[in-house]
């Protein structure tokens, strides 16, 4: 008979078996973790605790020549969603939609995507939107800061500056050309993290510190840039023109004081630009036939080679038949009769310019143009500079007629900066300067000052003085209404025809331009105003003259340059 306290043997056995199975299971799990998957789990644990993060370098600030920041950095929040933590996707989407500029349906579909753990909904939020999202405390919605490049003056000098794209890489303009200098080098932080992902301060960590980018100081003077942009806007509005470019260069040094083109863009919102060609800087990448402004170079070569003097007289007649059989006339088919070389410039005589080029001769004429830098990049420190087009004797695109058409600025193409830089040769005594936009690089290892660089001597100081005197006469006579009273300016206008896509020239389109420098006793500014397809007046004088005058007037005032004739300045209306 079994005792009442006696436990049945089979129960004990069952209990033992159960315990054994449980023990074996535990043992297996332990062995599995510690032996079988040891390496993988250990790596996972280390990866979880020790995370490697890229420490972004601080991008340098870009200043104008007066120390005013043109491009700097501010942190901006990025809103993301941890998908499995979102409790109510529809309500979350409705709450976020008005704040981040995306549709509620779009957001809801983004945060309910199968297989996604993390979705970035919007970047570069405004501070107000960030504050409101933070206040809502939506489950699963995370804000984290990322650097954002900002341009405090909006679309000011935008094509000179370029922009920084979503990957924080500079594109176009100075941002693109100096990306490696201003962008710095990112660092790396490997550190043990707490459960929130923060680095444990006293735990082991290794930091390869980032190298911050250098600050850049531009030659661009924001005051001059503003003068130029305002003048350009007014000129385009009054002429109902499609586009235009104005550049101001210091002819003594090659410093670009201002360079503006329209249409342009706001680099703060580069993502809204639908036409990527707006990012290009027409001042260095757009080529055009310069027309009569080019006669200044032709005449300078005539003077330099000694084939003409300002008083040399030539009678070009009503027209001239050039090789190939084409007839070339002066503008409006005017026959100027006998004219001096100064009058050739005053009348902007095509036939006179052709005669000068003929006297100079093919070889010297084209060597001279090449010395002026025509047909090749100026080397300005911006990306995307065009070469221009200068067909040379012997090349397939050159004919004998080119010598004659090139003399008055047709049959070749220049960039606005190329032409202005060549004009600076006339202003500064005969040296071709290398134009530049960055004059100082302020890095962690010191400051590098960029010095003006003479590329080559092109004409003699005597020729420079003579052509300057001739162009001053032109300004004081032909373009008197655009002069600045009391100041001497050397200038020339140009009305260029626009090549048609179907061949020949578009009869309804011109490019009006005016180029010059002053004050002529010590030229500080060389200015090119170029207005594309003016509608009110096709002539360069009317299209570009008012802006040219306005710019010089304000430049003299801004830089406090006294007039050479104070009485004329005082009594001017």
């Amino acid at each position, binding site marked *: 008979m079994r005792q009442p306290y006696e436990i049945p043997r089979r129960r004990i056995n069952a209990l033992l078996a159960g315990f054994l199975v449980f023990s074996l299971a535990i043992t297996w799990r332990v062995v599995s973790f510690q032996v079988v998957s040891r390496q993988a789990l250990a790596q996972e644990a280390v990866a979880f605790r020790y995370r490697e993060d890229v420490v972004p370098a601080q991008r340098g600030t870009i200043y104008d020549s007066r120390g005013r*920041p043109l491009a700097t950095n501010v942190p901006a929040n990025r809103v993301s969603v941890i998908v499995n933590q979102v409790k109510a996707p529809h309500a979350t989407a409705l709450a976020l939609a008005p704040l981040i500029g995306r549709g509620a349906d779009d957001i809801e579909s983004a945060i309910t995507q199968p297989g996604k753990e993390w979705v970035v909904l919007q970047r570069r939020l405004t501070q107000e939107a960030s504050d409101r999202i933070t206040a809502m405390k939506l489950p699963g919605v995370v804000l984290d800061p990322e650097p954002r490049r900002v341009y405090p003056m909006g679309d000011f000098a935008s094509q000179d500056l370029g922009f920084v794209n979503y990957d924080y890489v500079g594109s176009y303009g100075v941002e693109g050309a100096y990306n490696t200098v201003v962008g710095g080098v990112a660092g790396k932080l490997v550190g043990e993290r707490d459960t929130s992902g923060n680095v444990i301060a006293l735990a082991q960590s290794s930091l390869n510190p980032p190298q911050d980018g250098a600050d850049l100081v531009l030659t661009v003077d924001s005051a001059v840039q503003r003068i130029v942009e305002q003048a350009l806007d007014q000129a385009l509005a009054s002429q109902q023109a499609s586009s235009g470019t104005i550049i101001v260069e210091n002819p003594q040094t090659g410093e670009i004081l201002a360079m503006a083109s329209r249409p342009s863009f706001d680099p703060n919102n580069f993502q809204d630009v639908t036409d990527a060609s707006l990012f290009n800087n027409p001042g260095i990448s757009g080529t055009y036939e310069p027309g009569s402004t080019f006669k200044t170079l032709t005449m300078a070569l005539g003077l330099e080679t000694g084939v003409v003097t300002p008083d040399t007289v030539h009678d070009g007649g009503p027209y001239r038949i050039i090789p190939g059989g084409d007839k070339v006339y002066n503008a409006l088919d005017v026959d100027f009769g006998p004219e001096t070389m100064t009058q050739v410039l005053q009348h902007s005589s095509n036939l006179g310019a052709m005669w000068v080029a003929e006297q100079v001769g093919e070889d010297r004429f084209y060597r001279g143009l090449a010395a002026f830098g025509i047909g090749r990049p100026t080397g300005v420190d911006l990306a995307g500079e065009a070469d221009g087009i200068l067909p040379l004797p012997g090349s397939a695109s050159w004919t004998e007629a080119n010598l004659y058409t090139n003399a008055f600025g047709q049959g070749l193409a220049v960039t606005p900066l190329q032409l202005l830089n060549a004009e600076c040769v006339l202003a500064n005594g005969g040296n071709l300067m290398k134009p530049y936009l960055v004059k100082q690089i302020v890095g962690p290892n010191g400051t590098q000052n960029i010095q003006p660089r003479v590329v080559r001597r092109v004409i003699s100081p005597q020729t420079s003085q003579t052509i300057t005197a001739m162009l001053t006469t032109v300004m004081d006579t032909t373009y008197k209404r655009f002069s600045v009273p009391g100041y001497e300016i050397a200038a020339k206008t140009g009305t260029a025809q626009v090549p048609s896509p179907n061949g020949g020239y578009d009869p309804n389109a011109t490019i009006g331009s005016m180029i010059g420098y002053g004050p002529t006793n010590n030229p500080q500014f060389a200015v090119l105003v170029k207005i594309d397809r003016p509608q009110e007046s096709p002539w360069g004088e009317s299209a570009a003259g008012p802006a040219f005058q306005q710019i010089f007037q304000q430049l003299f005032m801004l830089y406090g340059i006294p007039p050479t004739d104070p009485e004329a300045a005082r009594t001017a209306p």
Partner: protein
Amino acid sequence: MSGATRSARGRRIDEAPAVGRTRAAVRPARRYFTLHGAAMVAIAAAALTVIGMLYLIQTSHVASLGYQLSRLQNQRDQLAIDNARLGYQVAQFESLDTIYQVATQKLGMVPLTRHQFMQVQVPANDQLPANAPQTAPPESGLRRVWRELAGIGRGQAPAQGPPALAGGSTH
């Protein structure tokens, strides 16, 4: 011969054996306290506890310092962010459009459209009134001694007048 001898200095030395005296000199050291086994265990446990407590206090202090450091770093980062935002605001306020709007709309200024240079005749140096040499007032001997002791120099007007301002332009 008697049982006592004399030393070289004539003092008498007892000839009795010195064994008893030697035993008295090496008597056992006095014991001030005695530990039983249980007391030793208790003391060891207490010592371990104190050491453990110290270790814990130190560790928790280090950990709290670590958190404080993290907090300060976050604070510093936040201040850097705020500083960047303020810098951006300053740059926006310094932008020429803003300055123009404030000047014309709030301050009632008008754009300068015309200016005039006035010619003035600059007098030759020998026509300029000579600057009276500025001499320092006399000082007491006590003050002079104090000045010398304290290493305080005494200013004197330059003979050529004040230096030109840096960056000044002449038009």
